[in-house]
Every structure is written in structure tokens, then in C-alpha cells.
């Protein structure tokens, strides 16, 4: 028996079956079950492919895992439950982290070329330019210079 759950990581997703310490992942080789067990306050995953030790924290719908210094954030919700965001273009016009808008280089209605800097953000002493992904027009601006913006907040509309 055991428990079933969904895991999503970026574009990949699995259905995991957990029975005691044995984890099977689909898609994947049925025979390649992975044994997970606690070892000295950490977690060890053993499979025919080898042994990896790391750790995990469950936070709401997310499971944070570290193995060999890598950080993975798995989503345990089903695909249908996950927020549907816009395409890649939309993601390109959001702040990647909380940041300050230091400069807005364009006006609403302005035509721009691919690669032009539209907005400059600054966070942690680094300047992060938001560039036009292709030739197009800035339809509207949703931020002001000096404003502190949050991740995923839309900074402008672009077509």
C-alpha cells in the first residue's frame, strides 16, 4: 500500500509511491526503487545507481531538498492545482526577487528593439536590467522609479 503523491520540479513531474522507506517514482524504472532512510539527522537515498545523502524541509505545498549542495524545490500539488502563469514573456517583465526600481528607460507607447534595457532594478548591490526580449511596444508601466517591487509583480505590459 503506502502513500502516493505528486511531485513537480520545473518542467518535470513524477508520481511517487512511498511504502515504509521505499520510494518508487513514475515515470521511471519500476525496479529502481529508492530506499530513503534517516542517517545522523540527514536523509540517505540508496538505489542501484548509488547513494546520495541530503536533507529536506516540508513547507506548505513545497518540499525543499538539498543533496550534494544542490537545492531543489518540489511542488506537491497536482498540475491542475498549480497557478497557471503567462508565457515566458510575462515572466521576463517581473522582478526575480524583491528589488528597487532604479531607472525606467521607456515610456508607455514607446517602440523598442530586442535587447533594449526597459527597466533597471537593483537588489543586493547588483543592477539587474530588464530587457526587451524582441522588437515590440511597451503598452503600460506598472512601477515607478524608487519603488520597491516584489517577485512576480508585473512591471510593464509588452507586445
Amino acid at each position: 500500500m503506502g502513500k502516493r503523491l505528486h511531485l513537480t520540479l520545473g518542467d518535470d513531474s513524477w508520481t511517487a509511491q512511498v511504502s515504509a522507506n521505499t520510494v518508487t517514482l513514475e515515470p521511471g524504472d519500476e525496479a529502481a526503487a529508492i530506499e530513503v532512510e534517516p542517517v545522523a539527522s540527514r536523509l540517505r537515498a540508496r538505489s542501484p545507481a548509488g547513494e546520495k545523502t541530503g536533507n529536506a524541509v516540508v513547507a506548505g505545498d513545497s518540499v525543499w531538498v538539498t543533496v550534494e549542495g544542490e537545492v531543489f524545490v518540489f511542488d506537491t500539488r497536482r498540475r491542475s492545482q498549480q497557478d497557471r502563469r503567462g508565457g515566458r514573456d510575462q515572466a521576463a517583465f517581473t522582478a526575480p526577487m524583491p528589488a528597487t526600481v532604479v531607472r525606467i528607460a521607456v515610456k508607455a507607447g514607446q517602440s523598442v528593439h530586442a535587447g533594449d534595457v526597459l527597466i533597471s532594478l537593483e537588489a543586493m548591490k547588483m543592477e539587474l536590467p530588464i530587457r526587451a526580449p524582441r522588437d515590440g511596444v511597451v503598452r503600460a508601466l506598472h512601477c515607478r522609479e524608487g519603488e520597491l517591487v516584489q517577485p512576480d509583480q508585473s512591471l510593464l505590459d509588452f507586445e
Partner: protein
Amino acid sequence: MDEAADFMIRRILIANRGEIARRIMRTCRAMGIESVAIYSDADAHALHTREADFAEPVGPAPASQSYLNITQVIDAARRAGADAVHPGYGFLSERGEFADACVEAGLTFVGPPASVIRGMGSKTAARATMIAAGVPVVPGETPADQSPAAIAKAVRAVGLPALLKAAAGGGGKGMRVIRESSEVDDAIVAARTESERAFGDGTLYVERLIEHARHIEVQIFGDTHGNVVHVLERDCTLQRRHQKVIEEAPAPRLSPKVRATLLDAAVAAARAVGYVNAGTIEFILEGDGDEARFYFLEMNTRLQVEHPVTEAVTGLDLVRAQLLVASGAPLPFTQADVRASGHAIECRVYAEDARRLLPQSGRLLMYREPVGDGIRVDAGVAEGDTVTVHYDPLIAKLITHGATRDEAIDRMTSSLLSYDILGLRHNISFLLALLRREEVRDSRVHTRFIEEQLDALAAPPDAGLVRAAAAIAAWAATRQTSPVTLSGEDDLSALDPWALIKSVAW
């Protein structure tokens, strides 16, 4: 030699935050000196604020309004009844007017005199001083006429590739590499804008770009009794965007002849400027063996981020020496006392997405440091703390010491593998990828190595590792006793994820 100074610091304000504030406090505690922390609104509950004997607020979260606000910091020192100020690194540590303000307020400034800070703070003045002291500098030009046309002319005179630098610069700000003559105009505008924004001074100078060079620096120390010594060298060649990533001591693959000349040059340079307290003279090293040539880059008039590798190999406490010297005592060690034992290496653990090169912020859902012989962790955070967007994304410095360089690196690798940090992305896998490289093992690297090898170093994890992580995630998620996560049906997005964290003691 009189052992006890007439004056000894009793209560010191540490004008900094994070790991360096804590590291200074540690020595203060050992010496019976009371520590006063300062904190911005964002750091009211930070580790350095909690651990100090006293803590004083200095303003809102942005550093410009708090940690960089001289009036606020001096007021805090007065309120706390401090008799001295340690600036740490960064923030106000290399601002002459801050050293002046401390002295005017009757506070002992732990560092060199303001005149020396100013002299070295101007990169162009420092170059001139070093030339006068007979220390080799990178061939270059400092145009008196600062018009774009005159700077462009200086670039042509120096020859391409060239490096355009801010006279007031540091940390790679206001710096531009010029490879093609078509890039000159844009580079001047970019370097000037960045320099004016970062330092309030747009003065630029030009150096020949020395490629495939190593970055070697010498720790020097002076006191008010005329003693000046070196405390060996460090190799900080592994950098990214002019920020050091891995540092070590002593420098590997450095011929005894070149090392001796380099250390002598550093002491001569320190003497030439009348240096007092801890400082670092940075050089770039070009070539190999006895033929290697070094050039003065800049002098940092403060304690360096990477000072722990020097402490690890020499057994000296540099902060203790700083506090004694600032109190007017002679240096607690002589040149003959300075000897290297084994090898030490330091990795800077940053909150950053190493693939997308972006600093990260977030709450540390899990923070567990490696422990063991020859392992030192200088961290500014603990589990549950938040790494904010306001300051440097350094989480911790991990330092390992071994009898040999190989031993220190092996110990570093195993320490990184057992360092569990969750809640934000960090560069540990990137550091591990670096340490696995043969060029790093053999010390056949140059300052652009990381940039050139970035794709390989930041390669995505292999499928086997991802599957192991997925299995661990599945196991951990099913051990979660809270019904909310197992059902997966409830919308939890409005809740603070911290409230849902299960305590993890597997």
C-alpha cells in the same frame, strides 16, 4: 617592551552586521571587552543584534540610511557609552570621514589614520604612492583631463585590452574591460555612471588588462611603535564579477624567491604610507616560477573578508591584534613569530542562484553547519533567520585547515557536502563543482577562470541526483503529519509557509 598599554578598550561599537560583526564580538568576549551592535530596522532580530552585550538602532533598512549613516552610528556609540569603534569590512570601513568623525567624538577608531584611508581610497593616489615607494604597479594612465576624449586617448596610449577603473572604486564597481576600440565610448559612460552612483565620484583611470593573471594579496600589520610586519600572503584568484569566491593561504605554486620579494614589497609599501593596524595589499601575479611578475593593484585599509585563512595557518587572532594596536599597545607578534602551518582554504557561501547569477533572499527553513576538526564557519545567520534583499548576500564563510593543500580541499569538499541550507538558493553546488576541477586542484587558474568555465561549473544536476532528491522529497512529504500537506487540496498560499514547517529531526 611594556606589556600593558596605558589605555585599553573597554566597550566597543561594531559598525557592521552579519558574520563580521559576530566574528569581532567573539574576540571582544575573549578579551573582556563589551560589544555594542548596531542594527537597522531589518536587523532588529538578527543574530549579531541578539548576541552583542548592547545593541543600538541606527535607522531604516536601506544601508544608506543606517549602516552608512555616520551621524547615526556615532550617536549610537555615544548612547551606548562606547570608547572605540570597529568598522569591520565594507560599509564605513574605508571612509576617511568616518574615521575622522570617530576621533572627533573621542572614540578610538580600530584602523589606520583617516589620512591613510583617504590616500589609499583614491586608487590613483595609491598608484602614485606605490610608484614612489618602488613597488611595481600595472602599466597605465591617469588622465588629469577627465573629459571622455582625454580618457579615450589614455585608453589608446595604454593599448587594448585595457581596464577602465574608478579612482574611488572597489569591489568591481565602475570597472569596465575594453577589448575593441568600438567599445571605448560606451565603456567610459558606463564606468562613469556606475562610479558616480556608487562612490559619488566619476574620476576614471586606465590600466593595461593583464589576463590569465592570479590575484595574490599580502596581509600587513603596523603599530604605533613603528613596527610593520607582513602576515604572509593569500591567493584569491577564484573570483566572479570581481567578487572573491574561494581564497587560500599560503598561495600555492609561488616560488620562494617571488614570495620573498612580494612580502618585502608589501612591507615597504606599508611603511611608505605610515600604515597602522591591519591592512591588505593586493597584487596581480603574471607568469610562472621565478619569472613571475607582480604588480600593485590596491590597498585595503581594513580587515579583509578572507582574514580567517591567514588566522588558520598562522594561529594568530588578527582581530585581537587590531584591538591591541588600536589601544596603543605594540603588535603582539614579531615578524619571526609569523609562520605558516599547513594550508587553509575559504569558500564564500552566498545566497545566490548560481545558474542565473541572481542574489536570493528568503527565510532559512533549515540551516545546519558542518562540524569537525579543521573546520571553521563564520556565519551571520541561524536557522529561522531571513536573508534580506538589503545587504550583501553572504550567508557564511566556510574555512578548512589541513596539513597539506589537498587535505584542506578534501576537508572543504566533505564540509560543503554536509552543509544543509534550505529556504533559499545558494552556491554550494557551484563551489563543489569548482573544487572538483583539475585546474583548481593543480592551482592552474587565473582570475577569469570562473567566467570562462561558467557553463560547465553551473551545469544542471544530473538525472540521478534529481531522482534521489525527488525520492527524499516524497519520503519527507509523507512523514509530514499535518493533514494539510497530505491532502494537497487546501489552498495554503495565503499562509506563512513557516507556520507549516515540520520540525525535522529524522
